């Protein structure tokens, strides 16, 4: 009974915030004292998917490409680094881990501010690459952490066993290492993608208004007061997180959420 209560509380408290967004997006009229919209309608969704909503589709594209590139780079650099941190002991490992946590816990606002001038000097401000780089400052450490977690549970003896069973070093990578770490890699990719996807301040500071990502559009929609459209865009904005979460539920369950706990 006590556990069911806990379960119920958790469920309600997590689902609650998303209900109003849905309600907003299908409302035509919703004023202060009412608990639910007075008039329902599809204006907001029509707006988002018609030509006048081009800006939103562009934002979707910008956000998506930013997140994709950031994630790819994070994985390329993060997998070898995470493997080294997870499998081997070496002097300075502890201090490395400590420094890696820094960008995760220090707010992106400060990091972005700090790097802004240097980015201007290097011609990176207001560019796609610049924004990718600023996103990498937190996506990469996060990826390294998750991959490191994968490799602390990883037994390199599997590789030797495969060698003795006749697998060449190349085949060991493709047929042993890769399938062994793929659940962790998917989680790392997921988080890296969503971290980049949901950036607001850092994109604004380094992108200088040139990179109109979905969160930036969303915030300006908030300011303009068109809440139904903001609600609809907000749902689009949440969609990949939700999709990714559901599709990776299998892996999340399997690894016991080791990567992100």
């Amino acid at each position, binding site marked *: 009974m006590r556990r069911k209560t806990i379960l119920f509380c958790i469920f309600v408290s997590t689902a609650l915030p998303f209900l109003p967004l849905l309600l907003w997006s299908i409302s035509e009229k919703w004023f202060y004292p009412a608990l639910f919209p007075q008039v329902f309608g599809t204006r907001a969704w029509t707006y988002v998917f018609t030509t006048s909503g081009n800006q939103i589709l562009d934002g979707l594209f910008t956000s998506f490409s930013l997140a994709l590139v950031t994630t790819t780079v994070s994985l390329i650099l993060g997998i070898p680094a995470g493997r080294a941190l997870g499998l081997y002991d070496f002097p300075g490992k502890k201090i490395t881990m400590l420094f890696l946590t820094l960008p995760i816990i220090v707010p992106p606002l400060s990091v972005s501010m700090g790097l802004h001038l240097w980015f201007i000097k290097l011609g990176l401000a207001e560019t796609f690459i610049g924004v990718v780089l600023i996103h990498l400052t937190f996506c990469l450490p996060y990826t390294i952490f998750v991959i490191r977690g994968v490799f602390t549970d990883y037994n390199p003896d599997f590789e030797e066993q495969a*060698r003795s069973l*006749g697998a060449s070093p190349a085949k060991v990578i493709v047929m042993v290492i890769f*399938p062994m770490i793929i659940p962790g890699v998917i989680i790392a990719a997921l988080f890296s993608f969503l971290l980049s996807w949901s950036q607001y301040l850092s994109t604004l500071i380094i992108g200088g208004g040139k990179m109109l990502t979905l969160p930036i559009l969303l915030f300006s929609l908030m300011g303009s007061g068109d809440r139904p459209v903001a609600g609809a865009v907000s749902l689009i904005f949440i969609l990949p997180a939700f999709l990714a979460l559901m599709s990776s539920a299998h892996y999340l369950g399997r690894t016991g959420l080791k990567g992100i706990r």
Partner: protein
Amino acid sequence: MGYLELQNLTINYGKTPIIRDLSLSISNGEIVSLLGPSGAGKTTILKTIAGLLQPASGKILINNIPVNHLPAEKRDAVLIFQKPLLFPFLNVAQNIGFGLKMQQITGIKAEKKIGKILEITELTDLQNRKIHQLSGGQQQRVALARGLVLEPSILLLDEPLSNLDASLRQQMRELIQTVQKQTGTTMLFVTHDQSEALTISDRVCLLLDGRLRQVGKPEELFYLPAAPEVARFFGCNNILCGTDDGKKNITTFSNTHLNRCSNGGKPFTIRPEDIEILSASRTGPEVLHQSFEGRVIGVTFEGQLTRLTIEVKKIQITVLCGRPTYRIGQSVRLKMPKNCVHFFP
């Protein structure tokens, strides 16, 4: 066909040699065990033979062909690790087929081979199971099958029984022996458990302090140890200095000092279960001449055998006898049968 020859193998860990000048040759179809205490470097030897480690010096020959330069995947020897190390993303049959896939053997040919091994190892019913659905003993069987299916000249087994509990150990032991009879595979297996080595193998190689101390049939190592260390390893603490009457009848004995004898004696050993306790009634001069009076100072009932500690002239002798009929303080006469006395070479 499976011949293995190691010539003057030295293996370093970092720069410290841990295996020195090891030579050994194994014939076709033999089961040889490499016995030694934990941390003696037994696994290191297997890994070196398998090609996962490089020896500092010495030669490895498989079927009379030197293989030092060959990488692990090209050596005709498969090492089965102590842990099953089954790939969690493959099912039982796929795990067994992994090595065949690496050799480009697929389709019906692979299926036939896998089917045959599944039968031998009694895993046919489990072939579609996922790894995490298997018990520890089943996993160990799959690991064995995964090596056997490749029909290697040499199968190297690293403590194949150590992760199993008593009854599974017995089953697995019998399985290895059955499989060996059916396939005729040459096997070198590593263990730290003397009873395992004695029971399962044609020959035993005892590894102490990085060197092979004795190689031979189980009974040879057990009853004719080459050195006091070998005797002690097999649980025999009766290492003494003795003089005999020329017919191996011990006339006097004393303690050794660092395994050496002063005052003319020669070091010998006698297994605790070989020492006879004479009934008090036999007191003829012949009996008195060939036996020693002592006092029981310790009795431990261990089940099949009872361990007695008997003090003879301030020397403690361990005797294993059957039923626990002796009491502490009791006087007994010990006899050391001459065919059981072993003088160290």
